[in-house]
């Protein structure tokens, strides 16, 4: 009985991690920029849901749709003003630029909304599904379903649409793509915007389940990098599977070996994966330096 509960909790947590990681892996896969402001963008999504709920009485599932244009605009601004200027400029420039964006966002949130932690206080935030003595949180179940849904849609987009094929072409070889008259700048911009929308959406959907405060991005940000590297940089399926693997490891090791050890355990596995299979579970070897054979 407790084992079933543990596995369920692990899968729910894994869904959360997967949902957060999709945007990160998408941006890396195409732009080859590791977005270190990812956690802070998640935080903005959570605050969007919080304010929409507190001031406007909107449930997060309405905000999830209504706020997408805002996230898109925000993603576009960050791309135009910062990320675009760092493309092809070496890792250090990109790391410092995105870390800088993260620091600015976190401190802006502190100035605007203080360091107080907040939660969305509504019936649906505490809603649980009871099946034969086992409880599952409804908002987490929704996040879980959306994680699978979004990665499925992205997979379809990348493989079945012309625009998606252009994205993959740019990811594989930007020079050749340019030679084929693909507007790489536009593809980069759209991919970045899409990635930011994904993480914003994740923030909105997680807002009912976790405390919201300016530094929340740090807690989730770190684990999402682990998930993405484990699954393979740039791989949708990898982010999904990586999320579930880390979620399950965290819950099971936390229960059987002690909560203090749970992070140590998944970082240990992370190190082992890097040693044995540096490209991650679904990634292609050398993905971090050259084009991908395949994304999605």
């Amino acid at each position, binding site marked *: 009985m407790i084992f079933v509960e543990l596995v369920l909790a692990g899968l729910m947590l894994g869904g959360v991690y997967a949902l957060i990681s999709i945007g990160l892996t998408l941006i890396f896969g195409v732009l080859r920029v590791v977005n270190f402001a990812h956690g802070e963008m998640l935080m903005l999504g959570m605050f969007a849901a919080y304010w929409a709920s507190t001031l406007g009485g909107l449930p997060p599932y309405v905000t999830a749709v209504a706020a997408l244009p805002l996230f898109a605009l925000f993603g576009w601004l960050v791309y135009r003003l910062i990320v675009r200027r760092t493309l092809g400029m070496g890792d250090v420039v990109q790391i410092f630029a995105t870390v800088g964006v993260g620091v600015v966002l976190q401190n802006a949130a502190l100035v605007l909304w203080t360091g107080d*932690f907040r939660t969305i206080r509504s019936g649906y935030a505490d809603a649980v599904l009871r099946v034969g003595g086992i409880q599952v949180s409804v908002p987490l179940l929704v996040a879980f379903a959306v994680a699978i849904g979004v990665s499925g849609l992205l997979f379809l987009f990348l493989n079945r649409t012309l625009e998606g094929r252009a994205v993959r072409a740019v990811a594989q070889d930007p020079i050749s793509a340019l030679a084929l008259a693909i507007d790489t700048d536009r593809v980069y911009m759209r991919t970045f915007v899409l990635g930011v929308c994904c993480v914003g959406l994740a923030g909105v959907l997680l807002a009912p389940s*976790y405390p919201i405060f300016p530094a929340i991005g740090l807690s989730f940000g770190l684990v999402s990098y682990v998930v993405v590297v484990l699954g393979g940089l740039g791989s949708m399926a990898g982010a999904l599977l990586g999320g579930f693997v880390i979620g399950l490891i965290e819950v099971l090791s936390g229960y059987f070996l002690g909560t203090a050890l749970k992070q140590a355990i998944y970082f240990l596995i992370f190190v082992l994966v890097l040693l044995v299979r540096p490209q991650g579970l679904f990634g292609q070897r050398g993905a971090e330096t050259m084009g991908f054979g395949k994304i999605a």
Partner: protein
Amino acid sequence: MVKRVVVGLVVGVAVVVVASVGVVVAQDVRIGTIFPVTGNMAFGGNEGFMGTEIAREIVNERGGIWGGKKIVFVQADAPDQTAATNEMNRLISRENVKLVVGSFSSAIAFTASQVAERNKVIFWENHGVADTIARRGFRYLFKTNVNATGTGGGSAVFAAGYLAKALNIAPKDLKVAVAWEDGTYGASVGKAAFEKAKELGLNVVANEGYSAKSADLSPLILKLKGLNPDVLLVAGIGQDAVLFWSQARKLDFNAKAVVATSGGWGVPDFAKNLGDGANGVFSSDFPTEVNPEALTPHARELAREFVKRFQAKKGTRPTGNAWLAFAGSMVLFEEVLPKAGSLDPEKIRDAAFSLDLPNGSMANGCGVKFIPHDQFDGGKNERAFAIVGQWQDGVMKVVGPDKLAAAKPILVPLPKWSDRK
């Protein structure tokens, strides 16, 4: 010619203004403050600073110290221990500060006081509860508040005494689980709770550490749920407390009573975020608004003034942390500095050790008597104590000890989550 005269006048006036400002600055009493005002401890760091700032305002408005000199703060922000070291170095070597007040967090206090000690600068700590802070034989450290042994141990004492009786379970049969965040604060308080529970012969079924930075605590909650303790003793520092208790609700973990040790469980954000779910949770906590009868007339007046000003600034009643900051800083500004007559660290030490103020002298009800630096717990205020509070209708009410109590305990045992709707 006229132009020249005008320019000359402007320059002259400017020189006089700059010089006079310079003179004013030179006469001010410059004191360093170090708090985590950004980062994930900012919620508490800002409250700590606000309490300290209100103390400064009151003292300055009432004529300052040393014949009209005003206290000014040189502020430092330390969101983590590395920043604490860097900022302390800056305060001491660049700003030439001789006295620093802090710091909300045990971890920051631990690190910052180390730099102060090395430079023979007084570190005046009003918050950090970790026992280890005052157990390093430091000569320039003063700690006005209660230790982890007081808050953590106090939670176990309350479980073995009041709760065992109220739940009608013999102490040796009372199943107790101890959970603590594994930072300097929680580890210290958790250890004190665990050791006291063992010493009192309680049936301790779990002693679990967790990271306060965890995004999710479901493994811990499920483990506790499997062990089914009667009483949970818990030390959380910030948002982890809200996460802990909201996940306990979602995963249906029920204990008959919960005794927290202040930290994240004792701040208004806890009740604000959890609503009715917070009601009934006990906290072995820092004294806040104690029964005014227990205060001296001066402390009573200060307490009233503090609440008024804090509410005007923040819109809420002050937390235990803000009370610590205010009460501890008032002792420094009103009692120690006037006696010391200068910022000379040796004179401040002598002045601090000369204090012998009975309970009720501080605005939060404590007294002041510092343990000599060459003794165990040297520099700690031996008259600081913890109280037991309980969340009742969103307000932390003091329920013990009896002479300070403002309310009676309720909701023992706690109703199950499924019965709470």
